[in-house]
């Protein structure tokens, strides 16, 4: 079920009411949330619910096995087996097609025929998100940082509909305690929740949709036929599109959770204000970044070893992070670019430290140059991220160098205003948003209702007919 639909609005009205009516009755509340979340997930295909159920059973059993294993070796084996099973499910659905086609093409090339059977495996929505949450639960229990959950608590944790489809990737330590305790239905932070939901809808339905149709889709569909300014704006535009799409989803998810009495971790923090790639990854899809850090980068050794090992660990982490997004070479290149960028930054910092060089003066010019360069590098990566093939990505990039002197009818003042306005909005002082929310909460009920209704009208009026699924649904 998509958030920006009437179906979901009706669903949420029911879920909200059930949530608070059953709040005093923990058992019934959990059962109802599980039921509602499965209805939410199964809206597009009930078979997917079996997969969610299977993942829940495997991860919960893994946590129990880890707990009851009498020896450290047994605990380790139980954890490894559970994680392997979860990754196996993910691998089958997400990577089998990619791997089998590539292996068969290699074998075919050396005259060995097609050794690997080809199947088209449908990719269940959100499988990457709930698999990562399930893995983090098992590993946290193994590490002793999390007590094993009760069955119903765990089922709510994994399936809770506000985060189910595209995150944030919430840890057990963050959500399970909130599930266990009763929430306060008399103190809902509704002005922040409504703000987040409206802002998320506006970003997704209006900004992201407009930029996609105005520049990104036309240029990426036939890059050879567009000018250099159009190719550049397509890359910048995609940066805006994916930010508004994904952070819009996250805003709505966090807002919905707030209305239900839950707090989710933040997932974006003005990412295009970043001054280097490391900074960017502290601000972009933060819950994935910390997952990769805690469950992949550090277990690989982090930067505790030699420089070469650190670079290796960064590259492995980012390339696998790229592959997490999708089974395609474009994502591999995107991840590798992130890894190379971070490695270069790491080596530069290390070099300065070793040479005992003083800190560089942080003037505004230097800061803005860093921001602009970081943004351009991020956009370079986005070209590969959005392209359907490597050749398409290179075709778009090629136009940046060869498409000068041609007409650029797609680069309109409205497009430029939208792109630059969205980027500059990240620098607006956050206190103003807080003041707006506080001001809203002090208004009379009739004014609040009118404002919310008209804001919704504006969003639906200026959005397209029908809303495309969120980009991150397919991850």
């Amino acid at each position, binding site marked *: 079920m998509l958030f920006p639909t009437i179906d979901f609005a009706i669903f949420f*009205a029911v879920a909200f*009411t059930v949530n608070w009516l059953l709040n005093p009755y923990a058992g019934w509340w959990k059962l109802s949330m599980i039921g509602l979340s499965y209805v939410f997930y199964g809206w597009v295909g009930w078979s997917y619910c079996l997969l969610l159920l299977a993942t829940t059973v495997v991860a919960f059993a893994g946590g129990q096995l880890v707990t009851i294993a009498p020896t450290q070796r047994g605990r380790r084996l139980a954890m490894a087996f559970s994680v392997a099973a979860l990754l196996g499910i993910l691998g089958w659905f997400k990577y089998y*097609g990619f791997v089998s*086609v590539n292996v*068969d*093409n290699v074998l*075919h090339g050396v005259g060995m025929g097609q050794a690997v059977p080809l199947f*088209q495996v449908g990719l269940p929505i959100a499988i990457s998100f709930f698999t990562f949450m399930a893995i983090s639960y098992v590993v946290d229990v193994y590490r002793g940082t999390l007590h094993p959950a009760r069955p119903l608590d765990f089922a709510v944790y994994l399936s809770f509909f506000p985060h189910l489809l595209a995150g944030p990737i919430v840890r057990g330590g963050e959500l399970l305690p909130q599930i266990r305790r009763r929430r306060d*239905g*008399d103190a*809902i*932070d*509704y*002005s*922040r*929740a409504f703000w987040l939901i409206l802002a998320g809808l506006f970003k997704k339905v209006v900004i992201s949709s407009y930029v996609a*149709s105005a520049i990104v889709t036309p240029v990426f569909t*036939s890059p*050879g036929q567009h000018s250099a300014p159009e190719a550049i704006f397509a890359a910048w535009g995609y940066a805006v599109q994916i930010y508004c799409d994904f952070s819009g989803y996250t805003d709505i998810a966090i807002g919905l959770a707030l*209305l239900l009495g839950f707090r989710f971790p*933040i997932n974006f*923090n*003005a990412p295009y204000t970043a001054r280097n790639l*490391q900074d960017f*990854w502290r601000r972009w899809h*933060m819950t994935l*970044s*910390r997952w*990769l*850090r805690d469950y992949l*980068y*550090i277990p690989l050794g*982090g930067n*505790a070893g030699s420089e070469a090992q*650190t670079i290796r660990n960064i590259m492995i982490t980012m390339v696998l992070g790229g592959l997490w997004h999708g089974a395609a070479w474009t994502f591999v290149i995107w991840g590798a670019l992130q890894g190379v960028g*971070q490695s270069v930054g*790491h080596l530069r910092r290390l070099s300065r430290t070793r040479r005992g060089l003083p800190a560089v003066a942080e003037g505004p010019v230097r800061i803005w140059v860093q921001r602009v360069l970081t943004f351009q590098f991020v956009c370079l990566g986005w070209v590969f991220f959005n392209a359907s*093939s490597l050749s*398409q990505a290179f075709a778009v990039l090629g136009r940046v160098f060869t498409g000068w002197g041609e007409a650029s009818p797609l680069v309109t003042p409205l497009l430029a205003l939208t792109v630059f306005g*969205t980027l500059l*909005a*990240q*620098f*607006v*002082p*956050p206190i103003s*948003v807080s003041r707006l*929310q*506080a001001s809203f*909460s*002090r208004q009379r*009920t009739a004014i609040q*209702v009118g404002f919310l*209704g008209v804001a*919704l*009208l504006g969003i639906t*009026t*200026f959005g*397209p*007919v029908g809303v495309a699924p969120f980009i991150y649904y397919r991850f």
Partner: protein
Amino acid sequence: MAEREFVMADVADPPAAAPQREDATGSNGRRPPPPDRRARARWTRVLGLGAGAFGVWLLLFAPTLQHNAQVSPVGTRRTVSLDLVGPIAALSRSLQLSHLVSATGRSNRLPGGTEGLIAVGPAVHDSRNARQQEVPGATTTTTVPPNPKEPTAAAPLRVLIVGDSVGLDMGGPLQSDLASTGVVNAALDARESTGLTRPDYFNWPAELTSDMRTAQPQVVVVMIGANDAQDFLGPPDVPYGSPRWNGLYAQRVSQFMQIAGSSGALVVWVGMPPMQNPGLNAEMADVNTIDAQQAAQATPPVHFLSTDKSLGTAQGGYTAFVTDAGGQIVNVRTPDGTHLTPSGGQVAAQQVVAALQGLGYHIP
């Protein structure tokens, strides 16, 4: 254990004492600094606020919702939507509230897709590439139209590609391939969720007529039909699959072919590929059969291209993987079992180009 610097992503939740903020666009970021002056509310009040806001929006937006329901596929959902929204839309109109939305032109939006005709490739001049040629022995020059089968950069072949979302999957690569030859001006107009059975939703004959006027094509490539296995709206409704439906659909296909070929353009009609869903596959087989019959009866004949084997098994069944012209195994179908991947679109595009070459068009 040595202390580790988190190089790649030191993004743990900020410490409680760290300053937090939101970015101005909403989220994201950091929570507002204390003191928090926002009032909290009981859940029943929040429910009332939400319901009230939804009610205001519904009252203002009901006419558009009614329009959207009217043009949606026939079925229970459409019927229920119309029944529910109808009275609210009537109230909205009687209160003159609908003007608020109609003033924005919202109801005039078109279905997604290319959202219009996009032409790429060598420029086509107003003279439509007629070239001046001196006739030996004559004292005057005469205008000779260029041979469309021998296109040049100065006199490019004008190709128009139209279709639904599957047509878009094929049309994008085809347009790109043709335009990159430097001797073809390729125009693409493809619309998602459209077809020939629901002109109330999108009027393809009118659109094609307009496209023909704008692009003045010498070749028209059509790939349409994926959404056509549905009832014709009446009154009276004509149920899909009935003999009357088959006759009406054949008429619409024939009319579409006539418009496409009206200026003497060669019409290439690309059939729907095999579908993974058995029901949809059977429906598309019926649509293809009607298309092929009408193509054979058209005057001049329309060239029907079946994709059953190029995008299917040797027996014409569904498969997601085929071997392309380069000998590589490629995944040609998206996971929905209906649409084409970029590789699938490329395979179909290459089939069209090969067909044009087979018909004598010199396309490099």
